[in-house]
């Protein structure tokens, strides 16, 4: 009785979830595979001719390979920001967790502020301009690092709390200095939380739209999100290419999700519960 009821409930849920959550993605895929005229009708239907590969090529080669350049920019931005974030925030989290001092209160407050307070936009542009970093990729990398630190520190701190201090003591007795102790002994033990931080932050930074819009305007070093946003106005009559673009920028997070599903959910809930 009970099991039959739950089977029906499950089937109903599958159908509803399919309509609500999968139809929009199917729409992206179908439209991206249609010819220009057919896509313009905005119908939810299978394409009569699958021209997906052709559309991908057209989207990538449009405007002198702008999307390809944008992909390279986005990947450089993501890899550099995440690498810096991992090293710097694990260092902070380590000292914050291990050393009790009168600074802890202040540091914790700053970490919390970094999570809650919305960044001041124009003054940040001004700082970047004074440092000659406005409209440069390195400037945007530093911005992403500054805005991402808080979240990463919380994740690392929670994990480091579970590493026994006996390990530190043993290494100190063996004559390891602070840097050696951290980078040789502790850092390698953080591998699983590093994977979580890398995955969660890469998705966030790759998908970031607001910060590139403010701090990296201009076509020559646009990121993918910005490029797709700009295509929206140019391709208002070429929905197939617009949705081919959307499909292309959806693939990297989809791949990450397929392989690292557990880690992502873990990281987001762990970070969230602490925040």
């Amino acid at each position, binding site marked *: 009785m009970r*099991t039959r009821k739950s089977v029906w409930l499950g089937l109903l849920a599958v159908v509803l979830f399919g309509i609500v959550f999968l139809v929009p993605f199917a729409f992206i895929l179908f439209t991206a595979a249609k010819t220009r005229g057919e896509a313009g009708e905005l119908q939810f239907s299978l394409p009569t001719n699958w021209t997906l590969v052709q559309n991908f090529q057209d989207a990538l080669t449009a405007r002198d390979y702008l999307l390809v350049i944008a992909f390279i920019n986005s990947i450089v931005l993501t890899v550099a920001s995440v690498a810096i974030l991992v090293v710097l925030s694990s260092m902070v989290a380590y000292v914050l967790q*291990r050393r009790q001092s009168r600074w802890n209160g202040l540091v914790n407050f700053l970490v919390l502020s970094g999570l809650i307070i919305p960044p*001041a936009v*124009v003054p940040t*542009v001004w700082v970047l301009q004074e440092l000659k970093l406005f409209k440069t990729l390195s400037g945007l990398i530093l911005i992403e690092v500054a805005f991402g630190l808080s979240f990463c520190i919380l994740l690392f701190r929670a994990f480091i709390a579970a590493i026994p201090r006996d390990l530190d003591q043993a290494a100190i007795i063996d004559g390891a*200095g602070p840097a050696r102790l951290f980078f040789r002994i502790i850092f390698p033990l953080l591998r699983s939380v590093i994977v979580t931080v890398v995955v969660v932050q890469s998705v966030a930074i790759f998908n970031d*739209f607001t910060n590139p819009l403010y701090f990296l305007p201009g076509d020559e070093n646009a990121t993918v999100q910005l490029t797709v946003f700009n295509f929206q106005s140019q391709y208002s009559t070429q929905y197939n290419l617009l949705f081919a673009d959307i499909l292309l920028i959806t693939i990297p997070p*989809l791949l990450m*999700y397929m392989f690292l599903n557990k880690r992502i959910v873990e990281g*987001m809930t762990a970070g969230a519960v602490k925040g």
Partner: protein
Amino acid sequence: MSTEVKARQTARPAVTTPAAPRRKKSPYPYWFYLPAAVIFFVFFVLPTFSSFFFSLTRWTLFDYEFIGLDNYVAFFQEPALVIGLKNTLIYAAVTCGLKVVLGLLLAVLLTSQIVARGFLRSVAFFPVLVSTIGVGITFTVLMHPDDGLINRSLALVGVEGPAWLVDPTFALLSVALVDVWKGVGLATVIFIAGIVSIPREYFEASSVDGASAFRRFWHIILPLSRPAVATVIILSLIGGLRYFDLIWAMTRGGPGFTSDVMASVIFKQYQAGFYGLSTAGNVVLFVLVTVIVFPLNWYFTRREVDL
């Protein structure tokens, strides 16, 4: 990195020994804070503090002129800007409320014994990871008043759908609904984590006592997943009050100014070259977030200690 480390190690005794000969050197040195602190101060703390000053000026980035509270006066006298303030509160409240309610319902459903549970969890969570711009453009097409899939489907069952994004009364709400669609998966997994951590004894005891599913939800799940509820409320308020991406991708504040929020007002003023006014908007948003989120966060953490 390694050269820096070596330099530190060799330089260290010479610097610290004379200054503090008696104090034992900590194996957890403060200079570990330094690189992160420099970036955080230069690119976050400094702009935040200077925004208070620059909001009182007429500002070109290179030159400024002190004009007192004129920017704030202008801000609160311009109806188009005040709408942004009102819409921000509506948007944050609607998205936060819907994410809590729907997320909780989905979490209860997805922790019960139903078929394809893992698949359903994955499906509900995936939109969290997708590009907001991609989602925004897709739903702009799906919500097209005549040709969009949503209104065509509604027409099939005889319902005339609203004009969604081009209807002034529905525009903000439409964007909020898409935001909920994209973000409810995160709320759901947080609630699932909360529900899973409730000890099984409570459920066993309740089934021995013959409690109905509703009573089980009301008297066990809801009170015992309070920390998760607090987290979702805080997170979605922080996100909702400063939200920009989706609104910009779908309506750019339109039609007119009917779906403008603080973040889009700030961006529009920045684009128009009113840097002082834009920064004043930033300060208003800062105050709004601080006044709402910090006390709420304090309230929730205090209650947690009480439990």
